[in-house]
């Protein structure tokens, strides 16, 4: 049976059988074997049986450690790989979920990305993977460069244990891509003023108009405490302010015609975050798509950023449609 490595991305879950596990000596392992070789040749030359036995015992233990390293990986099942999307440029925290029969201790396995970062991007650091009670997960930081679907690189699960003489590893290559959001613009203009109908107000802790007093809740700022009323009532009272907020924000792709393609994506991404932070309802209008919203909340934000992330590249977009229609 030849060793097999995945040549194409494959669907998870994948279980690592012994034919997918590679075992090769580490540099120290090579040094150790040279040492043992010297020992054995010396012992043979002097016909010194204890020395020979010592050499062979150490060699046997080394061989056993190779097997043990392989056993650490075989039977391991990669159940799923997922990640919370992040803006491009920030490392994507990839979670590798694994499970295995709990009959064997699998501790101190590591996961890395096999140097796939390449091209000037430093390879991600490796992450620890311990399996307690038959399951465990590793969190691996993968560098991201551009928005859109990130094809997962071939990941590698490896271990140097038990003796550090050999490295046993197996490749996992998931075909499920992970999403990377666009990078929000760093310094940009404020949100466009709202043009919707529904004017609403929001309670705001630092507004100007005093609205009313209420009982203290944990987490309230000390500055908001109204000391005089509190003293009268024997309990802490907090001032609550009210500030008028604008109408729904409309984030319109076509309104930004002065900008190039990617900066436009960046600005919209920033505005989505800003609107979300201010708690305003917003609507995202992208070319060739139904409008998103108006709405607010985590779900809506993700939907908007996802739509932005999946916008085609400038070049693709130009090829696909009439540039004037979009610009």
């Amino acid at each position, binding site marked *: 049976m030849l060793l097999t490595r995945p040549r194409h991305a494959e669907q998870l879950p994948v279980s690592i059988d012994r034919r997918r596990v590679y075992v090769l000596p580490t540099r120290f392992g090579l040094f150790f074997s040279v040492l043992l070789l010297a*020992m054995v040749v010396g012992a043979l030359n002097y016909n010194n049986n204890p020395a020979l036995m*010592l050499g062979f*015992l150490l060699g046997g233990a080394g061989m056993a450690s190779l*097997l043990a390293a392989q056993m650490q990986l075989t039977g391991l099942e990669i159940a799923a790989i997922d990640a919370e999307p992040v803006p491009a440029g920030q490392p994507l925290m990839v979670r590798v979920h694994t499970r295995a029969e709990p009959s064997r201790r699998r*501790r101190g396995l590591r996961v890395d990305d096999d140097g796939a970062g390449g091209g000037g991007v430093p390879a991600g650091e*490796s992450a620890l993977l311990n399996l307690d009670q038959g399951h465990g997960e590793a969190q691996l930081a993968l560098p991201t460069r551009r928005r859109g679907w990130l094809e997962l690189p071939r990941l590698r699960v490896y271990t140097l244990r038990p003796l550090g003489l050999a490295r046993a590893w197996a490749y996992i290559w998931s075909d499920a891509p992970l999403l990377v959001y666009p990078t929000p613009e760093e310094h940009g203009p404020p949100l466009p003023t709202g043009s919707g109908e529904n004017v609403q107000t929001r309670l705001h802790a630092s507004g100007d108009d005093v609205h009313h007093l209420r009982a203290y809740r944990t987490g309230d700022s000390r500055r908001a405490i109204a000391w005089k009323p509190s003293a009268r009532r024997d309990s802490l009272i907090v001032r609550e302010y009210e500030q008028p907020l604008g109408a729904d924000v409309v984030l319109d792709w076509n309104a930004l015609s002065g900008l190039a393609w990617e900066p436009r994506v960046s600005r919209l991404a920033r505005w989505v975050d800003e609107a979300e932070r201010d708690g305003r309802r917003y609507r995202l209008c992208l070319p060739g798509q139904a409008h998103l919203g108006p709405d607010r909340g985590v779900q809506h934000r993700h939907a908007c950023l996802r739509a932005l992330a999946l916008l085609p590249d400038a070049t693709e977009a130009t090829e696909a449609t009439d540039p004037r229609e979009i610009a």
Partner: protein
Amino acid sequence: MSALPPQTLDDVSRRWALGAAALCLLPLLLQLPGWLAMVIAVGGIALTAAGWRRQLPLALRVATTLAVVGMVLAAYHFRFGRDTGCALLAGMLALKPTETAHARDARSLIGFSLFAPFATFLLDEGPVSLLLGLVAALVGLAALQRIAELESGDSRFALPISARLRSVGHLALVGLPIALVAFWLFPRLGTPLWGIPQRAMGSSGLSDTMEPGQWLDMFVNDDPALRVRFFGAVPRQDQMYWRGPVMWDFDGQAWRQPAWAQALPPAPSQPSSTRWDYELEFEPTERMQLVALDIPMQAPALARLGLDHNLQAAAPLTSVTRWRLASSPPARYQADLPDRFRDAALALPDGFNPRTLALAREWRRDAGADDTAIVDRALAWVRRDFAYTLDTPPWGRNAVDEFLFDTRAGFCQHFSASFVVLMRGAGIPARVVTGYAGGYKNVFSDYWIVRRSDAHAWAEVWLQGRGWVRVDPTAAVAPERIYDTLADRMPGAGGLFGALGSQAWNLRDWMRRGWNNLALGFDAQRQSQLFKPLGVDRLRSRDLIILFGLFTVLAITWMAWLSARGQREPDPVIRAWHRLQRRYRRHGLACAPHEPAGQWAERVRLEHPDQGAALAQLSDRFVAWRYAPLKPGPRSVDQVRRELVRDLRRHRPLSPGGRP
């Protein structure tokens, strides 16, 4: 491969690494001269302590390294040998811990440390070294394991020492099959690839010179020099003269064995009817000198006999060797002495021992031509007027004169040397023979032990018609000193505890000999006869290599099985249940991970009503065994379990695909 940045050692790992290095160093230090070992040990500990928190400056480290190299070389008088190399290794190892800051350093420290037990075995193959060496190697592996844990980023669990040793011991046990296969079948070298380095310092073996006082060290050394197993007749204890170097040349101070005697073929001898067949197991001495019962009939392979039946091996005896020999006390031994040998056996240096020579001439005048009378007269005198003692003054210029006329007390060197000078003065050809005398039977087994302290020197005189005849003047004075006739000459003797001690010594030596038989004396020749009991007379190298390959594959398979066994479910019921599930899986009826046993059986029953009933019943029993409290019944718990396991194992899905 993305490498992690150099991992700094934590205190636990560093302690493991340093402890392993110290343990590896210990057996080697025990083999070095005491003061040197002390200096290395104390220096190593001091430097390690000084460099524990902060690395010592480079200049200091270079200086100490040079100092250690210089000191070791000076200790061995700048002679290079195996022990010089080993002492250098010990010194270097003692210095290495000062530069152990990262995991890499610790690894290389342990790697080099594992060489120390190896070096120890080159110096000493004894059981103490062996035990210490194996323990050290095991701890070394445990330290490696600890470092690997540290590097894997999962050193949360500080395993107790015993658990760590156990897990390394498990690795070693799994590795044992291949180690044993390699040990017994890896082809040995019939002849070494390169020269055997000798020890720079002499060890206490028989030497080809005999100088005054030289043997006092040996007399206090109770270590076995050789062990003997007799086949058939066993000589009387007072006949056990183990013949070694024969000294002809005397320069007034030292006796020497002449090179020409060793180069000549053995002198003709007429064996008597007595014949002793025996096997010698010779402890290593670093010399080529062997001994044999007086006198060996012919040389075994890889050894040769000189003119005076002095047996020498072809190569230095660096490890335990075995020799099959036959000896016979001669009826006539070189009955015709050619003139050149007669001259050599009569030569005396000018200007030494005038009183002895005068006495010898006087005796010759009294005796006329009767050589035997002179020998008898000398022996009678020795018996009457001399005493045995190891406490002797240093020899002066006319040592023989002083011994015969002034002190009249000494040990075998004095007796034999003086006797030979006296005989030569009287015109009787004579020579000094050295070797061992006596022997001691181990009560635990049928073999004899000759210790280094049994070293002895006696005389041979050439008598007309009889040839060389052995005369032992020491025996005339102190036979008990030679033949081990007194109980208190037994090792570890004295009182009740002495008796126990001597039994313990016997037992220890018996085990040592067993170990020698099993492992130490195993060489190319014995390896080639490995399958003799199976009727294969001789294995050639090619056969060995094929066998080695074959058994290696077997051993690795076994190792893989041993390693994989960790995954085996310990409970036989669950194991049988899993196997049953696997059988269904092959038929496309796998039990899903989330599916309870009963639900799965129910599903199978719905899909294949013809075969579900038996499975449902089995799963009920399985669930009851697993989860229900056991009801006291007519059958014992064991019985219930056995029956359940049996039924689970027997059950098969009805037909492939679940379809009739």
